[in-house]
């Protein structure tokens, strides 16, 4: 059920003006995304600030929060995610497919759901990103993203997969 939901989310597209084809060097945008992981169905919220390096490359820095449960363990994680995104192709400046790589750093905060136990740790790692953008208007676009994360020093697990959907707003 989670897989179907995530596939539908990522293909519920409207569009984005920064379908990379319209981006110029120095353009800036902010994004807000919401998503979930494949294994459990936690909450993941992310805000990003992006900067266009050229027509093909975009760098962005984001802060994300993920919360959820894995059976008897509740987790609340905060991530810092600097990324570098590359535009694979654009279609009529309405539609873009982007791939990227990013670093991950943050804190993992675990709480037992049955006993008064807590555990926190600093985590770090990286992620691979696949993204689709679609224009809604000159300033707004819709983004769907899949990302495979790998983190070290995690008690929850090194590997997890997130799907998100959100909006991007051109600043200038």
């Amino acid at each position, binding site marked *: 059920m989670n897989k179907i939901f995530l596939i539908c989310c990522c293909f519920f597209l409207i569009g984005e003006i920064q379908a990379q084809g319209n981006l110029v060097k120095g353009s800036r945008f902010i994004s807000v995304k919401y998503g979930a992981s*494949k*294994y459990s169905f936690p909450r993941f919220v992310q805000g990003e600030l992006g900067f266009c390096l050229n027509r093909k490359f975009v760098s962005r820095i984001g802060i994300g929060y993920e919360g959820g449960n894995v*059976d*008897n363990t509740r987790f609340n994680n905060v991530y810092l995610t600097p990324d570098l995104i590359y535009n694979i192709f654009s279609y009529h400046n309405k539609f873009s*497919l982007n791939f990227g790589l990013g670093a991950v750093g943050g804190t993992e905060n675990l709480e037992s759901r*049955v*006993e008064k136990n807590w555990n926190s740790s600093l985590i770090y790692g990286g992620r691979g990103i696949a993204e689709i953008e679609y224009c809604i208007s000159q300033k707004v676009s819709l983004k769907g993203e899949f990302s*495979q994360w790998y983190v070290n020093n995690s008690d*929850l697990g090194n590997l997890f997969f997130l*799907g998100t959907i959100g909006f991007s707003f051109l600043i200038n």
Partner: protein
Amino acid sequence: MKHLTILFCLIFLFSCDKRKDFFTNQNIPSTGYLKLTDPLNSLTSTINGNSVIDTLKLGQSFTFTFQITDENQYLNLKFDGDGELKMDGASFTQNDITRNDKHSFVWTSNLIGDNNFQLIFKDKYGAETIYNYKIIIFKNRIPKISWLIKDIGILSPYEKEIDVSGLDGDDLYGGKIIYYQYIINQDTTLFTGNKMKYIFPGQGLYNISVRAKDNDDEWSDPVIISNYPI
């Protein structure tokens, strides 16, 4: 669009998510400390890890204390199997208990033969520690005896003493021999002692039989010697 759909489906299908339940994974089952409180049970029980095997005479009870330790404060204890169990004097089947508390248990059963029951300790994460008990209940064990004849010869050259040795089969469980039956040819004597003096009529061959009766009103197998020469 079709290619993109296929691409994203492939990405999704080859994704990897290996999150685990941290607190459940690091949880360890509880550890119990059993102490048999009846001195008799301490002699007859065999404790092998989490298993206890013992024998019990019908009407007696199996008593022990138990203390459980765990990193969790509360555990669930369940009694499952034959017989009836009392914890701290009250009838017990299942309840939550606090770690490190010591509890006394009394188990009884009217079922002769193998009685099996379990004490199952379960913590909040679902980890179980099971203690298995096998109590073999018997109704009674008959005495086992042997005898020999000693020469006395004080009152008569044919004065002898029949000296019987042996115990009731459940002597360890409080069983006792209450009297003996001595049969010499057709002469039958019931005597509470295990040493009986007897003056044989004369030289000859005698059929001598001795058996014992226990406090459960059961006879031992007779020990017979035919044509014993006097």
